[in-house]
Structure formats: structure tokens, C-alpha cells
């Protein structure tokens, strides 16, 4: 039974302080270089207060709101995977030792992290990556060390983005589980407060000492109304019925050739996608040749040598690489990990330089003609006037 409290806006800093006192590194959204990214936060004031984002296929712009909402935007180019599955990790070092060598293991960093402002789609993405890295056959100790002990302060989206389709993927917009605290921001009639749902005992404990009150039925209803409105505002939709079978049966569909004329194989989509996990291994030495290191770095199936085996790449064409990405994300992922790999966050659509839209590609393969103008103008952006 969800327990709901009300937290006034001015007490949000107290929540930050409570986390810092307990040695958490507080990470959350902030404005930098014209985008909302995730970084270390010291104060509530560093949140993107009064900002919103306008997203289209191939376009992302920040715009000022006419209120002081702390979470009045959706998701930017960063996702939480940059903290759980960092872009570059040193796995171990080695030093020559006579005829042999010695390996010095890297003890995975034991940092306690607090994620502030986690959206439902992102929580689903973390759970999806958990199934990849903490599965049956092997455990990624680096992921596990970072994952253990994170504090999740989730936020229910107050509006849906133009490229959002989490509702289609069953990944939002309301957070259901996997959080310590979940906030719904309410600005109304001069009031500014958060309806806070307690997810765990740890969440309740962090709130100790911060002025709070039980949420009234009316306040809970207001929060629910926001959740419902957001769910109805999705800018995109994706029909997931039989999608695995559909893609398995259409590996030679002419649409792959068509999208290949647009796709630059720039790999942006895989960088911003919160579930993409592919990596490569780099073995390096210093100039003396006495000291070597192995690093793990983010990689992308869109690169030409991703599939290289002696002599050439198996997937040499852009067509085969786009097909690999999309069929992995929406189809083979299901056979591999028991769920879709996509959470409907829309980042791949926004950050694609040519605006390739995964929902439109699926629609084209299903054979339904795209509704006129649905691609970019679709639904109106309900951002600034919330």
C-alpha cells in the first residue's frame, strides 16, 4: 500500500543534505551546454529550475518555462548507465616480471551514489541492464559494485516529451517499483510541493527530520491526475504486439534498405540509449613495454569493425548494422533477457542527426502507412504552460 507524504518545495534541499550527510554522492540533472545532463549536485539550486526541453526527431532545445518547476522536462542525452556502466573503466593492470608478468586487479570503486530525478523509463532501463550484467552465467563485478547501495529518488514525469513512448513499452510514465522515494511535483495556485511516495525503509529514513505531512486525498488525486495526463500525452507510440515475430520474419524487408539511405551509422543512438550495453576491450602498454593495462570502453554495433573477424566485417553495410541494432533492441533482446530492450524514452529519435524514428520504422515494417505529419508535429508540447 503506497504511503504518500507531502514535502514542501523549500524542504527539498533538506533531502539533499540528508543524502550528503550519509556520504552519498548526489547525482542529478543540471543545465550545461544547452542541455540537461546528469552530474554531481551540491544544491537544489543546481537543478534545471524553470527549464523545459523541446524535442523532435533530430532536435533538442532548452526553453524557459513560465514557472519555477524543478523537474519540468523529460530526459536528456545522459542516462544513468554512465554511472553504473561507465564509458571507460580500467579492468586491471599488468607488469612484466622476468619471463612472465603479474596482474594487479583493479578493486571496483565502492562509491555510494544517490540518483536524483530518475524517471520511470530510466528505472526500467536500470532493471534491464541488471538482467544483462547480473544474470545467470556471469556477474560484472564493476557493475555490481556500483549498483549495490544506490539510492533512487525517482520523479514521476509531469509531462510527456514529443519523442516519448514509454507508455507503449510498459515502462512509464508512473514509477512502479525499484525506488526509495518517488516525487510528483505539483505547482498550483501559488503552491509548490511534492507528493512523495515511500518505496523502501531507507527512503523513509532519509526523510526523517525533514518537515513532512501525510498527503491528503485531494493531493494524492492531483498527483494521480498528473500521471494520467502524462500517459495520454505521449508524442509517439509503438505497437509491441507480436513485434519479435514480426522482425524475425522480416529480416529482408525493403525498409532496411530505405533506412540505410538515411542512417549515418554515427552511433549516437547507442550512446544515448539507456539500455545499450555493448563494450570493447582495449589492451594498452606504456612506451617501455613493461606496463600494460586493460580498459573496457563503450562500443557500438554501428561501427564498421564491431563485427570484424579475420579478413573483414560480417556487417559491412549500414543496412545490416541498423537492422542489427533495431532487431536486437526490440526482438532478440526478448529471447536473451526476457523483456524488450526498449523503454520508450525517445532519446534515439531526438539525438539522431537525421531524425530516424524507431516507432516509424516499426510502423513501416508492419505495413501501416504513417499518418500524415505524425513524425514531428504529432502532439503539442505541453511543457511551458503546465
Amino acid at each position, binding site marked *: 500500500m503506497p504511503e504518500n507524504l507531502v514535502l514542501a518545495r523549500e524542504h527539498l534541499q533538506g533531502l539533499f543534505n540528508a543524502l550528503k550527510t550519509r556520504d552519498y554522492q548526489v547525482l542529478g540533472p543540471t543545465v550545461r551546454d544547452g542541455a540537461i545532463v546528469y552530474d554531481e549536485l551540491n544544491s537544489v539550486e543546481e537543478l534545471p529550475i524553470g527549464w523545459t526541453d523541446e524535442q523532435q526527431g533530430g532536435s533538442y532545445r532548452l526553453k524557459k518555462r513560465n514557472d519555477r518547476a524543478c523537474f519540468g522536462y523529460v530526459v536528456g542525452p545522459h542516462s544513468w548507465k554512465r554511472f553504473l556502466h561507465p564509458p571507460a573503466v580500467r*579492468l*586491471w593492470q*599488468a607488469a*612484466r616480471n622476468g*619471463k*612472465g*608478468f603479474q*596482474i594487479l*586487479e583493479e578493486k571496483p570503486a565502492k562509491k555510494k551514489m544517490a540518483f536524483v530525478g530518475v524517471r520511470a523509463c530510466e528505472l526500467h532501463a536500470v532493471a534491464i541492464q541488471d538482467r*544483462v*550484467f547480473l*544474470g*545467470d*552465467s*556471469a*556477474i*560484472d*563485478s564493476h557493475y555490481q559494485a556500483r549498483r549495490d547501495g544506490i539510492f533512487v529518488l525517482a520523479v514521476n514525469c509531469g509531462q510527456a516529451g514529443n519523442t516519448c513512448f514509454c507508455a507503449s513499452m510498459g515502462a512509464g510514465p508512473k514509477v512502479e517499483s525499484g525506488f526509495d522515494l518517488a516525487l510528483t511535483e505539483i505547482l498550483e495556485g501559488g503552491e509548490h510541493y511534492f507528493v512523495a511516495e515511500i518505496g523502501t525503509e531507507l527512503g523513509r529514513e532519509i526523510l526523517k527530520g525533514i518537515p513532512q505531512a501525510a498527503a491528503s486525498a485531494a493531493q494524492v488525486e492531483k498527483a494521480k491526475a498528473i500521471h494520467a495526463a502524462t500517459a495520454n500525452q505521449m508524442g509517439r507510440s509503438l505497437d509491441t504486439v507480436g513485434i519479435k515475430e514480426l522482425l*524475425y520474419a522480416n*529480416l*529482408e524487408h525493403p525498409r532496411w534498405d530505405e533506412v540505410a539511405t538515411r542512417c549515418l551509422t554515427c552511433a549516437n543512438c547507442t550512446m544515448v540509449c539507456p539500455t545499450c*550495453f*555493448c*563494450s*570493447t*576491450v582495449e*589492451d594498452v*602498454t606504456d612506451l617501455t*613495454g613493461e606496463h*600494460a593495462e*586493460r580498459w*573496457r570502453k563503450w*562500443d557500438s*554495433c554501428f561501427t564498421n569493425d*564491431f*563485427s*570484424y*573477424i*579475420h*579478413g573483414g566485417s*560480417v*556487417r*559491412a*553495410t549500414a*543496412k*545490416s548494422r541498423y537492422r*542489427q541494432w533495431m532487431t*536486437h533492441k526490440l*526482438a*532478440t533482446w526478448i*529471447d*536473451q533477457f526476457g523483456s524488450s530492450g526498449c523503454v520508450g524514452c525517445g532519446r534515439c529519435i531526438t539525438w539522431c542527426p537525421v531524425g530516424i524514428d524507431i516507432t516509424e520504422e516499426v510502423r513501416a515494417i508492419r505495413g501501416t502507412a504513417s499518418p500524415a505529419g505524425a513524425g514531428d508535429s504529432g502532439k503539442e508540447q505541453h511543457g511551458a504552460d503546465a
Partner: protein
Amino acid sequence: MAPQLENSIAARTGVDPMVPELYCIQRLRHETDDTFTIELSPTNGRGGFSFLPGQFNMIYVFGAGEVPISISSDPQNSKTFEHTTRIVGAVTRSMGHLKKGDSLGVRGPYGTHWPVEEAEGRDVIIVTGGIGLAPLRPALYYLMAHREKYHKIVLLYGARTPEDILYRRELERWRSKFDLEIQVTVDRGTRGWRGNVGVVTTMIGRSPFDSTNAIAMACGPEVMMRFAVMEFQRRGLSSGDIYLSMERNMKCAIGFCGHCQYGPAFICKDGPVFRFDRIEPIFGKAEI
């Protein structure tokens, strides 16, 4: 469903699966001008090494990098193990310059194995080309060590030229000592070669195995395996009786890096040995 392996990665808890263990080179033997075999043993008096035929290791050469190589020795020997590899890049080239006493990093063994249990009571037809014989050598050792459990065993082996034939003396020994039918062919004969010339797949049609009760195992270039499968099917073998060893780019061998994906399968953990009916829908499809 991959059978439970005693030395599976999950069982070795507490070990970071990306950290290699050190092994010592006992011997490095050049087989042909671009192929060599290394024999490894554990360093520091550690226990032995066990694996199932068809599995592979990730071999690390200090400073050069890491590559996946099938284990090619007798699985009954737990003291040392061997890898036969072609020189195809920087890592294998560096490896070929190493000497007895040098160290290598090893992670493994990984992957699925040849169906030596399923083949009991049946004929076994093994078709290999080039370096493809190396991953099947452990299976051949296993079959010979348990010879009475199998009916007819046939090995068809295609090499590039007579100079490229691997394990020549061993093949002779097997032919004479055990009840094995071995046919070797080359793509290009050279002066003095009085044996078969032609692709190995042409020998499947008239090979003396009982297609109503046989298991086929093939390993070699993908094109060779494609035509081998056609010949097996022409002989009447079903897709559930044919096993292939597939290969793709590998970086981690533990299902995390994503490189070795082949359709929904990860070749590092769902393969490299596949029962053909499992991969039939995508096998041979361009750029999958």
C-alpha cells in the same frame, strides 16, 4: 539448454571474469608457415585445467591483446592443454614469437561443446576444413578414448595444399590404430601428392555412414559449412543431427560486450557449437 559445466564461470565466484590467470608455455611448435600450436600448463604449481571438446579460451599476450582460440588437445589430459592457431593479426603474430617458459594470460574455458554424449550408439561423420580440424581434435580424442560407445566414425578433412595438412602423423596413427575412416583432400595438389584433390564437401555424398543413425559435426569456413550442411541434408540427416561451430568477433567471452551476437544467440555462451536446427533460420543470411 547448455549442460551444467563443473568449471562454469558462475561456479567460480569471487573471481573477476575479466582477469586472466597465468599459464606457462611448455612448447611452441610451428605446424605450417602460418599455423602454430602452443602447449600450456598452469604456473605456480596450480591444479590442472579441464575442458570439454569444442570449448575455447581467451588468450592474452602481454601488451598485445586477447583473442579467442579453440582448445585443440586431448580433454583427458588435465596437466597441459594446447591451442593451434593461424596467424591472422597482431596478437597471434606476437604469440607466434613467444618461447618455452614465456607466460600467457588465459580466461576460460568457455562455450558449448561437441555432442559426444548424444552421438553414443550412432555413426559419427566429422567434416572439417583448414584450421577447423583443431576444435574437433579434442572430440576425436574423446571418441577414440570411448571407441566402443560409437559405431562408424568418419573424418573428412580438407586442407589448402598438402603442406597445410595439420597433425599429419597423428592422422596416420589414428587411421591405423583405431577404427576410424579418414579421408584427406586438398584444394590444390602439389607435385608428388597422390591423394584426393577437390573440396571436402564433395566427399560427403559417398561417405560410408548410416544417415538414419548418425550425428554430423562440421567446423571450418562458413561457406564450407554451408555446403557441408546441404550435403548432409541430401544424405538425409535432419537438422537436429547436425552440429556446427560458429565464429564471430569476441571481446569478453562472457556475454557482456555484445560483439559475438548471432541473431539472439551469444556465440560465447550459447555457442560456439550449435545444433543446426537452432540457427537454421538465420544461417547463411547475409550480414547477420
